[in-house]
């Protein structure tokens, strides 16, 4: 960490986006993470993605739980709404907020401890219900705040900094998200912003439950030989599915590609995900194929990264429940409390 706030001075050529902000306007307080923490890179990628998407900072809600990862929302988007929930309870707070106002962009920021241990039940149900959100797990495989015990996502056989070998099986959050019905599932690596930023942008523009597992090395407790979540290990075993470009709906699509070279997915809002095909890459619309592919790679000792699955036409919780499209804070007392007669009518309908 550093004590100095980042100087306000910026590069003379720093650009403003379509809503008049520079990238620096999306920053937060100076990070108190350990120097070199992968989480800081994820924060930087979120800043970049929000700037590139011309997002109004006050139209974003950052909701997190407890842990190193859950501290990070302080370090980006300081002009956005934020809520630091009880440990593992980010998904229910986010679900509640989303039900009250669907117009905000919801970033659920969590970690492997917050989501795969204490909050696993919450994670499961928020995904299952299809809450419209970007659920980011900053996954480092250890409990950094309590000095580096294995977390639930630590691989079997990996070694702790003190030399202990992990005997438990890991929770595979990507596999679970696929199984639970997430409509956008991806994995990335904090050390690869070229991949992470477009994935974040696509997820932010996705309607439905978007899940992103981001491997994020813990420099202090999990960046040694024998760790499977270190910078070196992830780089050596990274199996990137395909390169993806994110093209917002207002951008003109200029480049032309030979058939079969790229596969384009148009999302709900008109944005296009352009996937540059690899010979052996799988079909992003095939949920079962994605699960198989994930497990096949895992069996070979490879960490598959990139966009695994997307359903561009997925619905979300509001669609399932047929809620009112207006945010609660725009409704008056008459709509929120329609009175005894309306209650009687509802009760009568249930008799």
């Amino acid at each position: 960490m550093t004590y100095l706030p980042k100087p306000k001075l910026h590069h003379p050529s720093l650009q403003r986006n379509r809503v008049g902000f520079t990238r620096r306007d999306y920053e937060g307080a100076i990070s108190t993470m350990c120097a070199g923490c992968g989480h800081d890179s994820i924060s930087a990628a979120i800043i970049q993605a929000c700037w590139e998407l011309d997002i109004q900072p006050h139209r974003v809600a950052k909701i997190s739980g407890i842990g190193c990862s859950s501290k990070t929302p302080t370090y980006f988007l300081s002009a956005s709404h934020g809520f630091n929930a009880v440990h593992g309870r980010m998904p229910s707070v986010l679900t509640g907020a989303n039900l009250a106002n669907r117009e905000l962009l919801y970033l659920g920021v969590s970690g492997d401890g917050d989501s795969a241990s204490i909050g696993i039940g919450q994670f499961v149900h928020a995904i299952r219900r299809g809450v419209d959100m970007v659920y980011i797990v900053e996954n480092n495989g250890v409990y950094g705040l309590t000095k580096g015990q294995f977390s639930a996502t630590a691989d079997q056989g990996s070694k702790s900094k003190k030399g202990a070998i992990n005997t438990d099986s890991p929770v595979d959050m990507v596999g679970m998200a696929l199984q639970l019905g997430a409509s956008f599932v991806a994995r990335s690596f904090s050390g690869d912003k070229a991949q992470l930023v477009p994935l974040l942008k696509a997820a932010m523009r996705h309607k439905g439950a978007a899940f992103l597992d981001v491997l994020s090395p813990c420099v202090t407790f999990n960046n040694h030989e024998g760790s499977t979540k270190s910078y070196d290990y992830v780089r050596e075993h990274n199996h990137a599915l395909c390169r993806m470009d994110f093209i917002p709906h207002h951008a003109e699509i200029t480049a032309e590609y030979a058939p079969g070279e790229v596969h384009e997915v148009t999302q709900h809002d008109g944005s296009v995900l352009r996937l540059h095909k690899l010979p052996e890459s799988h079909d992003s619309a095939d949920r079962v194929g994605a699960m198989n592919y994930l497990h096949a790679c895992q069996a070979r000792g490879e960490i598959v990264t990139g966009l695994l699955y997307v359903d561009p036409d997925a619905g979300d919780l509001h669609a399932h429940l047929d809620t009112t499209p207006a945010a609660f804070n725009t409704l008056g007392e008459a709509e929120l409390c329609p009175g005894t007669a309306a209650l009687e009518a509802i009760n009568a309908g249930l008799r």
Partner: protein
Amino acid sequence: MQPTDISNPQYFHKVVDCQWACPAHTQVPRYIRMIAAGRFDDAYLLNWDSNVFPGILGRTCDRPCEPACRRGRVEENNGEKPEPVAICRLKRVAADHRSADIEQRMRERLPDRIPGAERFRVACVGAGPSALTVARDLAPLGYRVTLFEADAKGGGFMRTQVPRFRLPEAVIDEEVGYILRLGVELVGQRRIDSLKALLAEGYDAVFIGCGAPRGRDLHIPGRDEAAAKIHVGIEWLASVYFGHIKRVGKRVLVLGGGNTAMDCCRSARRLGGDEVKVIVRSGYDEMKASPWEKEDAEHEGVEILNWLNPKSFVHEGGKLTGMWFTPMHAGVDANGRRKLLPTGGPDRLIECDEVLIAVGQENAFPWIERDLGMAFDEWGMPVLDELTMQSSLPGVFFGGDAAFGPKNIIWAVEHGHQAAVSIHNLLQREDVRKRPPPLTNLVSQKMGIHEWSYDNDISPDERYVVPWAPKELTLANIHQEVELGFDLQTAWKEAQRCLNCDVQTVFTKDICIECDACVDACPMDCITFTVDGPELDLRERLTAPAQNLDQDLYVSGPVKTGRIMVKDEDVCLHCGICAERCPTGAWDMHRYLFAESHAGEGQAAAPPASPQQKVTI
């Protein structure tokens, strides 16, 4: 690209923009830190070592350091008016607050005498800044230096032409006095009118620092008829200094756009000139005067009129009444070269009572006998070795305005340093062209996990303005100094604007784990990890494009993934945040010391442990 070789002393020297731009290579950031720490004597002596006249230069320097200052580039597009650090005026703070026993401390830091040096006699023609520098460098080594000066006192142009409202005489007396009291002989009121005769006196070396004493005249119709009220600027300024001239007409025209013109018009404002106009052939921006001198003149009510070429003087019965000017514009001549051309519009009459001509200065060496065999070029200038300042007569050296035409004080000082090295070499039977290597040092400034030996918290403040004496006071009295100098509180705040560009970001590629922390944390987007490529291609591919080609890219060899680290030095704040965010110490902040060696220095393999060496940041 080739990985940057940071062991080359020039690489980091160039990153210290101010020091690189200073002809005498003054260690600017280091003395600014000393001022911030209240170590005025150390700051003064560090300056004195390089530029010899900190008090004088702190008021009058042409400050090539300030346009070069990184702060100006950093503040671009950051909302304020981009301004460099007030380096020159901070120098004056060191001079204003030095202690009374500074001369004692000065002597403690002088180099050792060279056995046998007292056998050699060196004559200097003139006692201006270049000759005084030669004396300052050579006298402590034991050489016997004699200065011959046409005026009574030393100082040259600084004393006779720079007006007192910019430079009080006491400041000159003190700083010239320090040098004379090193055992230098000043022979005042002796104009050298024959080099042959001087050489015949048996000096072992002669240094010529006689300035460019001849002001250029303007031979246009009416010049001779109205001569009584037409003066050559530098001669007029000297007459003002000597008290021969105490008044000037009410309406004064100053011809010319250089700093002498500014001194003339401001002096005229103080001697009864109510309506003073500066008339310049070219445009406002092309004027040779420093921007701040133009501002100061305008502040005092001087009007600057551009694009007017003097055509003739108007007189009635020998009395000057005005001048005709031809309107000009920037055009292209028959050969396609940019040139000032008449617009074709009607001439303009401007009425006046007195005219000061400040259209340039010329060198003149009527006292150097051509049969001595000294080579002169087609413009009548001596043929010199630019490195050594040596003329074609091996024992005769030049410096200051006498060498390459009118420059400024700080260049004169540097010429003096180089000539002194050459004279020392000549007398010690060394190769005259040999230059002593600079003293360099690169040391980590890390004191704790995020603690540095320098203050890395960048001040967001805009440049502070030096307070002025009230205009009623300064315009009424030509001896009243205009600028009052920073008070200590403001000086400290201004010092905090310095970016410490001598504290370098040093990258060790072998311990980098490519976590991107530095890339994310850098407030100026200076750092990129990317695949190698040719420089111009790389410059476009960085986190922020590196479009200032004068500023180097710091490039590493391949890191683990085969990419390279590229840092654009252009707008780095030297805030050390990259090093604070680096988990492995691959980035570290190292203070780079670059001290130019003067005569008798830099010869030993290891630098001697003089008190100055113990002075760190």
